[in-house]
């Protein structure tokens, strides 16, 4: 579908002799770079080849080969396929790899994540602290040789849980079992998290300034979250305030961390499908698609024609309901007392009715399968969808537009607040509506098409000011475009089978790697998976838009008011399920 870019033919190995070699492992693509030349190579790739947009950075632990690999997926914001390159170091502490934050600032959080979970020390990173685990946690849990307290086996199904066909819960079997280790003198009941905070508070800017006329005022450090009404869950931001103005800010996350990726590596390929629902629980359909796409890519299987249409319909419906909720909740963050939010919920319930009818569940849909979807849409649901798409939703989106867009308070609260230029948005790896609101018309559905999006006639919504008001408007624009896609899809959906594969519990995935990316409502949702040919993935990495979009939070918030911080966070559109994973 996508035409290969001319740079793919460029021989990078000749440009960097001895430092860059093609990745020749079966099923792998891209280039392998030595850590010493990494920065030079990255600079070259960004400036000379134009891959200005780093979307994914993750570590892979190849325990048998005794190497720790870091994978980079970079793309061009002008569109086209991406470039994958890797660098690796022997699995011996300290594992040191140069940080690319100076080249792509968007690597910031992703490198911290790799440090946190894999113990890859990125030299030159400005603020290399743990991000998902707490400071003071011992070990790096994503490593293949790391074992958790209730460790059973490396992969599911755990045989010991069904000794004679009856299951026993692991936690029942060993409460504080053999592999629970505490430091001497440590009592988990009396532990208070004071020390781990030190590194965090130190990373904030100094909290006392002196004005020119010598009058001193104190800055105050305020914790917004984790138990705060407006952080959309257990997200926490430590804010330094000068009166009402934000002087410095650090996001803290991981309160909902359950090591999704580790569990994902234990699950079998198919078991991960319902598990992706739990990432962004507003858009389980899109999550399913991202994962299915990555696995299908690796398996090299086609998707049934009717299923492709169903996928588009479901993904666009979930985009609409996500954006509706976002607008409603953004208004809540601005202090409107729930009215827009509840108006949005009214429409969302109708969309969830459709989801329930087709998948059996309103939120945790678990609807996609490799090669298709799990159930067909019946005529009744099709009628519901037609009603929604041709009549109700366009009307209601217009209504939102009428009610909110020109409201004086909304305009004055949003316009000109926290602008992000196109260059900054690309540098910080912003994705989805956040990127497009800054004037970068980058939509994966157009730039790197997947599914059957290339068959539909729609425009990439884009706004050019990059301020809060545009971030609000872009959601309305996208809903209009989604309606357009939906109308075409509903008209064009063919009859036929809904899956190209036979239903089965096990999936044979050939060895190799693949990166599947979809344009989720919140931004780019990517799944980087590595298979060794076994029934379980060797590596299962989720690049979530919530997580990466927050990299620019500090940049956007500093200098604004504390009330704006709440709105900015609301417009980034985070969901803690996928932020903390």
């Amino acid at each position, binding site marked *: 579908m996508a035409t290969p870019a001319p740079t793919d033919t460029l021989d990078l190995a000749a440009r960097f002799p001895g430092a860059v070699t093609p990745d020749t492992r079966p099923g792998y693509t891209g280039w392998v770079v030595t850590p010493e030349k990494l920065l030079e190579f990255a600079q070259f790739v960004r400036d000379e080849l134009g891959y200005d947009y780093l979307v994914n950075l993750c570590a892979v632990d190849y325990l048998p080969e005794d190497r720790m690999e870091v994978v980079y997926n970079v793309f061009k914001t002008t569109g086209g396929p991406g470039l994958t390159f890797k660098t690796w170091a022997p699995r011996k502490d300290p594992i040191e790899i140069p940080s690319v934050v100076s080249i792509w600032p968007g690597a910031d959080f992703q490198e911290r994540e790799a440090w946190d979970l894999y113990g890859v020390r990125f030299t030159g990173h400005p603020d290399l602290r743990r991000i998902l685990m707490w400071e003071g946690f011992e070990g790096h849990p994503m490593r293949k040789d790391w074992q958790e307290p209730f460790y059973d086996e490396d992969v599911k199904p755990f045989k010991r849980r069904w000794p004679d066909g009856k299951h026993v819960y692991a936690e029942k079997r060993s409460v504080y079992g053999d592999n629970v280790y505490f430091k001497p003198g440590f009592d988990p009941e009396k532990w208070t998290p004071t020390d781990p905070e030190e590194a965090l508070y130190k990373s904030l800017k100094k909290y006392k300034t002196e004005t020119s006329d010598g009058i001193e005022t104190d800055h105050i450090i305020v914790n917004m979250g984790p138990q705060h009404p407006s952080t959309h869950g257990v997200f926490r931001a430590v804010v330094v305030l000068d009166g009402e103005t934000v002087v410095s800010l650090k996001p803290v996350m991981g309160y909902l961390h359950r090591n999704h990726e580790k569990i994902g590596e234990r699950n079998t390929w198919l078991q991960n499908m319902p598990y992706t629902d739990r990432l962004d629980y507003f858009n389980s359909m899109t999550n399913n698609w991202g994962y299915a796409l990555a696995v299908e890519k690796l398996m090299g299987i086609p998707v049934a024609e009717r299923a492709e249409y169903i996928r588009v319909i479901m993904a666009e419906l979930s985009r609409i309901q996500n954006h509706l909720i976002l607008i409603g909740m953004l208004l809540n963050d601005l202090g409107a007392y729930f009215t827009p939010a*509840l108006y949005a919920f009214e429409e969302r319930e109708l969309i969830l009715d459709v989801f329930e009818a087709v998948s059996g569940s309103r939120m945790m849909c678990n609807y996609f399968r490799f090669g298709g979807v799990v159930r067909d849409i019946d005529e009744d649901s099709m009628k519901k969808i037609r009603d929604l798409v041709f009549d109700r939703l366009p009307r209601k989106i217009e209504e939102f537009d009428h009610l909110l867009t020109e409201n004086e308070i909304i305009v004055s609260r949003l316009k000109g607040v926290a602008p992000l230029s196109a260059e900054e948005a690309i540098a910080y790896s912003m994705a989805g509506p956040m990127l497009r609101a800054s004037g970068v018309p980058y939509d994966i559905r157009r730039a790197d098409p997947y599914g059957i999006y290339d068959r539909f006639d729609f425009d990439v919504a884009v706004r050019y000011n990059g*301020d809060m008001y545009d971030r609000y408007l872009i959601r309305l624009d996208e809903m209009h475009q989604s309606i357009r896609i939906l109308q075409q899809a509903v008209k064009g959906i063919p009859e036929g089978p809904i899956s190209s594969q036979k239903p089965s519990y096990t999936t044979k995935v050939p060895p190799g790697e693949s990166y599947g990316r979809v344009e989720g409502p919140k931004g780019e949702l990517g799944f980087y998976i590595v298979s060794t040919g076994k029934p379980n993935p060797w590596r299962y990495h989720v690049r979530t838009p919530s997580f990466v979009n927050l990299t620019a939070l500090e940049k956007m918030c500093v200098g604004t008011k504390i009330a704006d911080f709440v709105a900015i966070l609301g417009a980034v559109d985070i969901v803690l399920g996928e932020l903390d994973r």
Partner: protein
Amino acid sequence: MDWTLFLEWLIKSLIVVLMLLVGFAYLTLFERRVLAFMQVRIGPNRAGWQGVLQPVADAIKLIFKEELTPGQVFQPLFTLAPIITVIPAVVVAAVIPWGPDVELFGRTIKLAVADLNLGTLYVAAVASIAVYGIVLAGWSSNNKYAMLGGLRSSAQVISYELSLALCFVLVTLMAGSMHAGEIVEAQRGLWFIVLQPVGGIVFLIATLAEVNRAPFDMPEAEQELTAGYHSEYSGMKFALFFMAEYIKMIAISAIAATFYFGGYREPWFLAGTWLSVDVNWWLGPIYMLIKVTALLFFMVWIRATLPRMRYDRLMAFGWKVLLPLMLVLVFVTAVGILAEAWWLIPVLSLAAGAVAVFLVNQALTKKWQRR
């Protein structure tokens, strides 16, 4: 002074206090039901018929809740602050006349707790005391959110105090008296909201800011400051703050009704009929109740509709827009009265309002273009 006089005070105070308390209880229910109606949901309807027992259930629940007094607070003020907040909220209603004078038991009874001839001044004074409780609560809590909430509140209330006080000046000018009863009588033919429309609107805006209601609910901006100045309060102490806020709403609605909407008097088109207060004195409280309810509905409606203003904008609006506008309105009204051309007042008032809207619009447009 005889004991009957004292009895009269006591009974009148008790009636007003109880009325406000019951009004508070049912205002919470009213607000929840109206909000629910506006938000496509049902609202509390389980406790009693249509939820009429909900306030009772809430009160009982709050009495039996654990009352936390965090370790770091300044105890005396922490306990005193809710009480200090409630008193002015209730007492400000003392001068509001709920009806014309009544002959009962052979004596003339005024349907106001205190018949002060300094009505407007009294209201202005007591309304500004109300902020003390909030500031003290914020300060004594020794909590950052509470502190910020208290600070915001004090700055906001004193800023809008100016516009509010100028609204009282306007009313005094138009009525030629500070006495609440006389102000009502002066509106016999024409409500002041008609005579001075922009003044009335500014008054309504300033009252919203004064009672910390949306879109000016900065001190307890949930999205930023969790619960603002009452973050650390729980149980009945919290209930007192809650009570003070709602009683303030009722009181300030009653004041607005008295000063700008003809108070207990019937609408002008009913003058001379049997629906006039002159004929049946007991219609006075009923008219008052209707007007207060309408104003309260208006406040709830605003809360359901508008997002919150940002703090700096709020302050700028108070100082740069409302204050100059009100100063202009005072002189405009004075000119109208001195020239004995009453039609001049609404015309000039609307003109001043239009100019203000135009200038604000210009300034904002320029600001957005600059960015």
